[in-house]
């Protein structure tokens, strides 16, 4: 199967590879996997108090399309509000990267990773608010 030029570009020069410390304030971590193929993807977002995504990092162990999907997402998502990021659909990733039908699940994985990371950030924020309340 031939990969599109955009997939190859992201695969060969992945953007924003790496990680933040999980307990760093404002960092949401999403770890998702595709059980059909055993790929795993970690997406981390650094989110401001105003709910704007300031930075994103990823680490993916999987096929070229999974790596390209997560790499593209880190570029796409920076500067977006949490709400806008949450609304990103996998179809957008499919179109941008020209993913063939057998690789659509890679884009779904990337969408799930965004939602998981935001969910983690919200959970952490909720816990902080709870402990502040308790302190008062």
């Amino acid at each position, binding site marked *: 199967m031939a990969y599109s030029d955009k997939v190859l570009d992201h695969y060969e020069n992945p953007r924003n590879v790496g990680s933040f410390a999980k307990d760093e304030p404002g960092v949401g971590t999403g770890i*998702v*996997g*595709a059980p*059909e193929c055993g790929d795993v993807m970690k997406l981390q977002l650094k989110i401001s108090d105003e709910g704007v995504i300031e930075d994103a990092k990823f*680490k993916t*162990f999987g096929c070229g399309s999974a790596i390209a999907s997560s790499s593209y997402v880190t570029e796409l998502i920076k500067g977006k509000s949490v709400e806008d990021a949450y609304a990103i659909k996998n179809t957008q990733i499919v179109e941008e990267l020209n993913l063939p039908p057998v690789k659509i699940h890679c884009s*779904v994985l990337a969408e799930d990773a965004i939602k998981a990371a935001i969910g983690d950030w919200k959970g952490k924020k909720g816990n902080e608010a709870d402990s502040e309340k308790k302190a008062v």
Partner: protein
Amino acid sequence: MTTNTETSLCLHCGKPAAHQLVCAGCGIVAPAGRETDYFSVFGLPRRLAIDLAELERRYYALSREFHPDLFHDRPPAEQAESLRMTALVNRAYKTLKEPVRRALYWLEAHGESLGRDNERVPTTLAARVFEVQERLEELRAARARGAGEAEGRAMCAIRDQLRADLGASEARLARSFEADDGASAGALAETKKILSELHYLRTLLRDVESEV
């Protein structure tokens, strides 16, 4: 064998076929109108736990029965049917014989798929995948420097542990087949969980084995 109410007509004598595969009257292959499920191909009960010896015995019997060589002097429609049946029998045998394939087929037959409602990797498994993958990266980096002997030995130990855990998962899968008929929501969820784990471990082991 479960009786099938959809009787088809025998290609040879035109009488209703006794069961899906062969006409009872003359023993000629009946045209199956639709894809037969793999369990009923062998007349086995639709259960995840199957008797492998019995499966094999019936597979050989059916293979002999439908062997295309036996149909060389038959009309083309029957020849085509014997080919189709041979292919179906082979496909069904290959799927049912191997527990992971059988379980995947079982999920599909129940309208389930591995990906559905299953996007979260169990945390400990994900942590393990990331740890091992990062150590693989370290091993490659060390080898690029002309070193990496100690890392290589450590990776062999990781590989052996992964193999052992994969074996344990396969055993758990086999046990889950026995739990009930495997068709309840709980049993399907358990099968799905073990299959996912197996896939993550297999992928990881494959990556490790390509290095040591």
